[in-house]
């Protein structure tokens, strides 16, 4: 009887071979990748710039007469003569109110800086959702069966898809971040170029967890329509029940409950801590701990399910 394998491939060999295949595919069609970045950029431009929250609360939006008369009963102790305040001074006061509200609720002085980094979570989510689709296509085209008849480990198939989604997301995150800076993103004083590496790490962790979830959902599926329906059903709720667009503290309790377990919130917060916020290392630690646990648990589940379900 022959030996089992003359070359004895390591587990990593299969992962690398399959990841390389996907990388080659997108390097050949870079346009598709660029197109995928377009959507968050458009959101960033329209939503981020149009929703000028900081300016809405400023004095310019109030009709303040040049001189304000305040009747006696409002002032303690009561005085016989009305007090006159300069309208300009009040206007000045209100002007400072907007940025101060922004700073207290959003943590940054302008809404654009807040939401544009949130767009990185947005693109991560989209990219991972489509990793589920890609395994469905591999199955439909027979490629998956071919791989399954080779000694490549079942887990390697999942891991390579996760890697591919992560690399894609990191690349797209870089583009989005660069564009946001061009459009007027203001980084905080604690920002350091090394933070970008932290950002990549956080993106990778969410990618690993989320794409494992979507891959697990797609393991047995041959219909990309089903996959599409799942993506459409999940993506907006997951997006809005997080801190991507609005701070969690201002949400009703039940949405807060969802947002606090939503891993998107933790990625967004980690990215903000690393870029636009004054860095609070304890909350950054917590973000990473949550994302790490999420990634670990779901990629383990994904790999375990692939062992069980890729062979019928």
């Amino acid at each position, binding site marked *: *009887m*022959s030996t*089992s*394998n003359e*070359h*004895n*491939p*390591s587990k990593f*060999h*299969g992962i*690398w*071979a*399959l990841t*390389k*295949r996907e990388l*080659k*595919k997108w390097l*050949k*069609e870079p346009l598709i990748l660029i197109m995928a970045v377009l959507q968050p950029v458009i959101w960033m431009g329209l939503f981020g710039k149009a929703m000028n929250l900081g300016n809405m609360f400023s004095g310019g939006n109030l009709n303040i007469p040049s001189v304000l008369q305040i009747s006696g009963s409002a002032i303690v102790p009561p005085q016989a003569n009305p007090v006159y305040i300069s309208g300009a001074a009040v206007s000045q006061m209100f002007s400072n109110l907007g940025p101060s509200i922004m700073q207290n609720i959003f943590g940054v002085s302008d809404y654009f800086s807040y939401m544009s980094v949130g767009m990185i979570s947005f693109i991560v989510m989209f990219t991972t959702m489509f990793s589920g689709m890609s395994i469905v296509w591999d199955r439909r*085209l*027979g*490629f998956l*069966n*071919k*791989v*399954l*008849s*080779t*000694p*490549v480990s079942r887990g390697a198939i999942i891991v390579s898809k996760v890697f591919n989604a992560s690399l894609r997301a990191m690349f797209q995150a870089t583009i989005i971040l660069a564009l946001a800076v061009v459009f007027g993103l203001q980084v905080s004083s604690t920002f350091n170029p090394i933070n970008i590496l932290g950002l990549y790490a956080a993106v990778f962790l969410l990618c690993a967890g989320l794409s494992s979830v979507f891959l697990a959902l797609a393991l047995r599926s041959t219909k990309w329509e089903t996959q599409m329906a799942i993506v459409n059903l999940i993506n907006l709720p997951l997006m809005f029940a997080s801190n991507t667009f609005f701070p969690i503290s201002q949400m009703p309790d039940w949405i807060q409950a969802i947002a606090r377990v939503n891993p998107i919130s933790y990625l967004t917060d980690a990215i903000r801590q690393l870029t636009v916020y004054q860095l609070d290392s304890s909350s950054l630690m917590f973000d990473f701990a949550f994302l790490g646990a999420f990634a670990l648990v779901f990629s383990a589940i994904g790999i375990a399910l692939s062992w069980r379900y890729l*062979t*019928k």
Partner: protein
Amino acid sequence: MSEEIIKAEGLTKVFNKHLVAVDHVNFEVKKGEIFGFLGPNGAGKTTTINMLITLLRPTEGTASVIGFDIAKQHDDVRNVIGVVPQEYTADEDLTGLENILLCADLYGIPRKVAKERAEELLKLVELTDFKDKKVATFSGGMRRRLELACGLINRPKVLFLDEPTLGLDVQTRTATWEYIKTLKKGFGMTLFMTTHYLEEADSLCDRIAIIDHGKIVVVGTPEDLKHSLGGDVITLSIKDDPDVTELIRGVENVKDVKKENGSYRIKAENGEVTAPFVIETLRKKGYIVTRLMLTEPTLNEVYLEYTGRSLRDTEESAEAFRAQRMTMRRART
């Protein structure tokens, strides 16, 4: 030469608890032979092949490939087999060479060895000139050849071919047969293939198993199967149409003689040897043979004999025809 490369014992696959796709199948494939599974669509051919290449777990029974149990030692099985699937599985965005190297990577073959083998295989399947073209630009025949090259990259001991010429035109089909014959001769490889083309099974396979409704109906060489029907048919006409039935019946190896519309229909073993004897016997008695035709039984008749229906006239196609007619009717109104 009698070493068993594949051995299936009571191999069974049941889908969704009641759909029996393969029903207690037993067979052996010997070293160096081309073994064919012949049957209509839905007979269980692909399900059997998918169990042997470890894509499906058998519900019952076992099978071994080169001594490795397909259920327990699947990684060992995967290492020694090559697979050419029914579909075109090559990645359309990659070039021919990139696809072959990807296959090599999946087996963990070192890059240097892989490149040498890839060149060799591209030459074998005559794709060297197209190796740097995207597979999306390949024709059906070229893709099938590329699949063949991919299936051979790990120098498999057994090659599994699932409907290797499905959807190919006659010319390409014949060319593919030639490649398969080369593999058998040049590498002494064992091949397991499924097909629903009778000509293919007849011209390629050393032994055939006819499978129907998930069961193997009969196994044998194409020749044996044809002979089991009672030999060849000699049809001849004699000048002035005399009655010589008894005379012909007396010739050695003649099994049966019937007179139909002025000609004789003779069933005989080894028709090509028996026919001259018949002519000789008749001439000695002064009869002149004016016309002679020798027909060998085809696999289609064998198929008909064992499954009770012609391959070209399966229930599936009748249903498909009805469905098509319904669609056309709906389209018209």
